[in-house]
């Protein structure tokens, strides 16, 4: 493999990893707080893609982008209200099924409304600008994604560990009742968590789809699954973990495909995951559950 | 019973560390057959941890725990139960969604002779029958028979404690470890429990080793008492000796107030 090809592959790996990381953070946020695998996360991400298509059709990009972020956030919070809130005291499995149900619903709704055919994702000026250095070529998003990811991680960690809202989120994640006894408004905290999670999905969707150019009803399902794996890999609930997980999977996958083992690129994701879990049963940076007898 | 005291449980120089915390620091003690022995000490002294080291939930950092002369090192909790040590937990751990009857019946399985095929194909009806009869008998003896179809978690606290003990008895132990059996009971109930412990000790030829903070109970029935503080043994002896030991009073019992 020539050096150019190698570097090009590295760029690909980094940009894929960055996109995975962004989505994985959203998973980890919601899981960390609600102990809920939000299967609909990938589909919220897909819907954000469609929102952008329609928004850009009728407004300039600098209005469309905030608009899409807002609408996606509202969608996420709305889903929480309708599908998860009534199940606060139900078995965890029911909530998960509800999440799967929402995921089905969004996919089916998208198929119904927008057909199964892919739709072109609009270009946001600047993001798609292609840089060519020697034989290498990469667009602006390729560099922008990892940087933005790191910035967001910093902000989120600050939020969770150094603000009151963050403290409330962590308390709610353990025990609704006791959290309420501390004066924490459970519903507001959870809504807030979903808002952040969906916002991240929306940001992730802009970067991801800009790089991949089309949206179809199942666009969210595979990244959804992979990013969930990335989140588990890093230790679900841990934000730096999700980022590391995202990059490891993105780059590992790229390396494998580049080496000609596409067949195992999906399986690879899981092999890596299982190896990590065997060594560290709660993921790379996962907190050990404290369960004193 | 033997005239020579046969020791059933022996801990020698046991140390248990969690990261920076040394929960038990060189604990040595013995419990002899047929005795009721209490382990007391301030909160966080390492009492529960000692129990966890005995029952295999933790592996001690160093030191030896032996049961009837057999070193328990590396043995898993189920294996230790099989050897004849049963326990209850500080925070009640019943199979909360199962019935009282099933809670006890499950424990009976330990001594059953069957395998998954004979059990599934109902070739073990005799064995199953025997387990059920024994469970019934045990429940009757413990005055729990009327409640046999109740869901365990719906029982009042005191009865849950009693059920937990019954379940432990169902494994046919020689040594019974009780971790704060009277917690959450009012003095009246505590008194009943006191009589109950003596009764089962005699009825099932048990050795009892218990952790307790209710001094009336401890002082009434324990033949010997060990006192632990910061993971170290600070005193041992009879009720009177302990009650009058200044170090124990200072660290644990406090002023004259009755607890």
């Amino acid at each position, binding site marked *: 493999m020539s050096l150019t090809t190698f570097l090009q592959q590295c760029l690909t790996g980094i940009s894929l990893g960055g996109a995975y990381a962004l989505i994985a953070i959203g998973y980890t946020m919601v899981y960390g707080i609600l102990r809920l695998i939000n299967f609909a996360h990938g589909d919220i991400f897909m819907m954000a893609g469609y929102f952008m298509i329609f928004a850009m059709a009728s407004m300039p990009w600098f209005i469309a982008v905030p608009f899409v972020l807002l609408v996606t956030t509202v969608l996420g919070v709305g889903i929480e209200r309708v599908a998860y809130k009534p199940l606060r005291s139900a078995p965890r499995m029911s909530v998960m099924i509800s999440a799967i149900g929402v995921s089905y619903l969004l996919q089916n709704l998208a198929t119904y409304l927008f057909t199964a055919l892919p739709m072109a994702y609009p270009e946001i000026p600047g993001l798609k600008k292609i840089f060519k250095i020697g034989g290498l070529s990469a667009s602006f998003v390729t560099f922008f994604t990892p940087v933005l990811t790191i910035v967001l991680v910093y902000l989120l960690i600050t939020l969770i560990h150094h603000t*009151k809202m963050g*403290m*409330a989120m*962590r*308390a709610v994640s*353990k*025990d609704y*009742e*006791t959290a*309420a*006894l*501390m*004066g*924490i*408004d*459970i519903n507001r905290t959870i809504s807030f968590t979903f808002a952040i999670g969906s916002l991240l999905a929306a940001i992730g969707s802009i970067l991801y789809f800009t790089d991949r150019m089309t949206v179809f009803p199942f666009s969210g399902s595979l990244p959804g699954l992979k990013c969930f794996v990335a989140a588990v890999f890093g230790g679900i609930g841990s934000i730096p973990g999700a980022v590391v997980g995202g990059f490891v999977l993105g780059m590992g996958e790229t390396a494998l495909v580049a080496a000609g083992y596409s067949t195992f690129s999906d399986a690879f994701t899981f092999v890596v995951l299982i190896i990590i879990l065997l060594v560290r049963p709660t993921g790379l940076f996962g*907190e050990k*559950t*404290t*369960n*004193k007898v | 019973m033997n005239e020579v005291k046969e020791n059933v449980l022996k801990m020698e120089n046991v140390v248990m560390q*969690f990261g920076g*915390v040394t929960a038990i620091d060189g604990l040595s003690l013995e419990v002899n057959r047929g005795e009721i022995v209490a382990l*007391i*000490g*301030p*909160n*966080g*002294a390492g009492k*529960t941890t000692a129990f966890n080291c005995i029952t295999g939930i933790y592996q001690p950092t160093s030191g030896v725990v032996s049961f009837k002369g057999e070193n328990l090192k590396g043995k898993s909790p189920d294996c230790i139960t099989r050897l004849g040590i049963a326990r209850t937990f*500080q*925070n009640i751990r019943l199979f909360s969604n199962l019935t009282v009857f099933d809670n006890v019946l499950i424990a009976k399985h330990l001594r059953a002779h069957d395998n998954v095929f004979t059990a599934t194909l109902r070739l073990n009806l005799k064995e199953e029958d025997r387990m059920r009869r024994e469970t019934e008998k045990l429940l009757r003896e413990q005055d729990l028979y009327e409640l046999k179809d109740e869901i365990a978690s719906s029982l*009042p*606290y*005191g*009865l849950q404690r009693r059920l937990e003990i019954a379940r432990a008895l169902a494994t046919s132990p020689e040594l019974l470890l009780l971790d*704060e059996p009277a*917690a*959450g*009971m*009012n*003095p*009246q*109930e*505590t*008194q009943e429990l006191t009589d109950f412990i003596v009764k089962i000790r005699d009825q099932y030829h048990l050795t009892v080793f218990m952790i307790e*903070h209710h*001094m*009336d109970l401890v002082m009434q029935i324990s033949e010997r008492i060990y006192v632990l503080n910061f993971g170290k043994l600070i005193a041992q002896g009879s009720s009177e000796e302990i009650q009058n030991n200044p170090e124990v009073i200072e*660290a*644990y*019992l*406090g*002023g004259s*107030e*009755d*607890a």
Partner: protein
Amino acid sequence: MLKVDNLKINYGGIEAVKGISFEVPDQSIVTLIGANGAGKSSTLRAIAGLVKASGGSISFDGEDITSLPTAKRVAKGITLCPEGRHVFPDMTVLENIKIGAYLRNDSLEEDIQRVYKLFPRLEERHWQLAGTLSGGEQQMLAVARGLMSNPKILMLDEPSLGLAPIIVQEIFNIIKRINQEQGITVLLIEQNANMALKVADRAYVMETGSITMTGTGAELLANDEIQAAYLGRKK
């Protein structure tokens, strides 16, 4: 200050509390005693808004709070230290203490020092994850956390459970102190009826969902029936 009127609580058809009424006067210590399963905890949970009352009303400072959500009640100054500790296992001791003051916006430093003084063990272990504390340590933490919210009324559900005798005395001393020094009203549930009645200004006895007896602490302490049933003194 707190007034409970004809409170009823249902768990799936089973009536755990059958229309009880009582009052907690300002700056007093009131205790509820009674056998296991009498409905004491349920009553406190209803006051804190954790379970819905199926009938009756609860008012606080003359205001009806029966249908207020828990967080709002806490904001009004009602704090419950729940039965079974319920510390946040994955947070450190210090974080647990701080979260007790979630609704406060003033400086916490002084109060933290105060609870540290009450429970030196907690200061020693402020960095430890609460889930790994011993049972008794967790109990101390739960009480400390409850104090941090600067409540008007502090409800304690069996605070002495599983504590060493010396700490039990300490806890009751603390109860008296916060009541006298800080003027916090206390509503207490205790199995240790003996000590509870000693500190209580007023006591209620609950049996299978109803209040069967009431009086000052001293009155009940002297009562033969109570002695036989709850104080373990036969005769």
